């Protein structure tokens, strides 16, 4: 070639190709997780205790992840608890159920030893504190499913701390089950 290549000499690059794939999977929840998931579908918090170390799990697996011992039969807990830690979500993202800002917390459910992650709503984000008592707010009964989505959010137990839900909240019936917090 008598001259240097310039961009116009090169073929038009292929920028994209379509390579879609779809794979359908069977979900096997397992015996332990099924206990918790069925409880959610029935509007109940079912926790399980380790006979070895006394740790109480919600959600509970089939065996204690510390002792590797099988957990005791499930027992119902009220689902009330306190805020262990929290953060205020300010970023919008696809699949979000609530318009930011809103609060996501780690909750110490009464009678359990692990933290549960969930939304904290019906409260001004600025009023949320570590140690604040919270209670679960269930989705309408018709919407209960074997998922933590049956609990729409937690709210302050003290009515004085409550604020109205933001008007922008996506109606629950339009929200996909199990969407991200």
């Amino acid at each position: 070639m008598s001259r240097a290549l310039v961009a116009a000499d090169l073929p038009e690059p292929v920028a994209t190709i379509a390579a879609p794939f779809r794979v359908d999977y069977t979900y096997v929840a397992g015996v332990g997780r099924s206990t918790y998931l069925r409880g959610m579908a029935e509007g109940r918090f079912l926790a399980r205790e380790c006979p070895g170390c006394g740790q109480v799990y919600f959600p509970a697996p089939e065996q204690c992840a510390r002792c590797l011992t099988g957990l005791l039969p499930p027992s119902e807990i009220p689902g009330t608890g306190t805020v262990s830690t929290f953060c205020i979500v300010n970023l919008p993202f696809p699949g979000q159920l609530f318009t930011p800002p809103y609060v996501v917390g780690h909750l110490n459910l009464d009678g359990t030893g692990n933290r549960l992650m969930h939304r904290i709503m019906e409260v001004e984000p600025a009023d949320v504190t570590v140690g604040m008592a919270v209670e679960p707010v269930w989705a309408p009964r018709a919407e209960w499913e074997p998922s933590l989505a049956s609990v729409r959010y937690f709210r302050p137990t003290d009515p004085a701390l409550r604020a109205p839900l933001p008007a922008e909240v996506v109606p629950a019936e339009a929200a996909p089950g199990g969407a991200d917090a």
Partner: protein
Amino acid sequence: MREVGVVAFAQSDCLAANRRDDMADILAPVIAAAVAEAGVDRGEIDFHCSGSHDFHEGRTFAYIESLDAVGAWPPISESHVEMDAAWAVNEAWSWLQLGEGDIALVYGIGRGSLARDADQVSHTMLDPYYLSPLRPHRHALAGLQAQALLAAGAIGEADLAATVARSLADAEANPHAQRSGRYDVFDLLTAPYVASPLREHDVAPLGDAAAVLVLATGDRARELAERPAWIRAMDHRMDTHYPGSRDLTRLETVELAAGRASAMAGFAASEVDVAELHTEYSHAEPLLADALGLGRDVVLNPSGGPLAGNPTTATGLIRIGEAAARIRSGEADRALAHATSGPALQHNMVSLLEGDG
């Protein structure tokens, strides 16, 4: 080289579909059995390494669920390979060779039953530009390889059927086998093709299972096991990703890995008493035996091999465990374990094991 040996091995039954247990629950009793066999306390395990693949599980980072079966409390030293757990053995073996610790636990979990249609998964494991858009049938590449071997005169269809008949008969003595039984070669040859010249029985049946190995070094291994199965050498080689660039009738990767492993071990691959081969298809057995130089005196896949049960990413690990079991029982002095990954035997690992004389 440090002496690194298998001191315990346990595996679950291979089920066509386990709908009862999640990943942790399939693993938990198998880990407990292997740890009990080794006679070690959990706290004495210096390193945990595992293998599984999200394509089979249908979730990203699926393997972290398995840590609930290991007990990551207090926190543990841990690693994972996104492939067959035979490569997790390789990582743990290397880790022990480096003197990082004395005891390692390796586990593999494979759930072939979760994807509802294996054809939906198989093409996603191929490159997205050349092969995946063609949506090859899950057995298409293996069929090309088997047909090429047939055309080259390396094997006949009756050889494939004979391999299947022998494997499934041997599997009758394997309580974990998914498939076993006595079959007549001529009856097998009347079955329809799934990817000519391969028939359904030529394909290792996908299933769900877990397997666990405990490795230990030198005198610690001798304390824990009467006759440790020393892994004298491991080597793995990978061929190019595009099958069209390869001579599918020749496994240069296996020849190289075996040569390298032999030099490391001090004995040839052909000098073993027993070989457990990761045969995802029946035609892989004569192809591998030829590449490894295995004579007729070498017992092939006495467990029944993958043709009796193929729990995806646990299958290669089980080959090492089964080979080690023959040494630990005294049935064999030297054994070979082979593991594969990728389409049409693209990536191959050869392990050479030996018992104390």
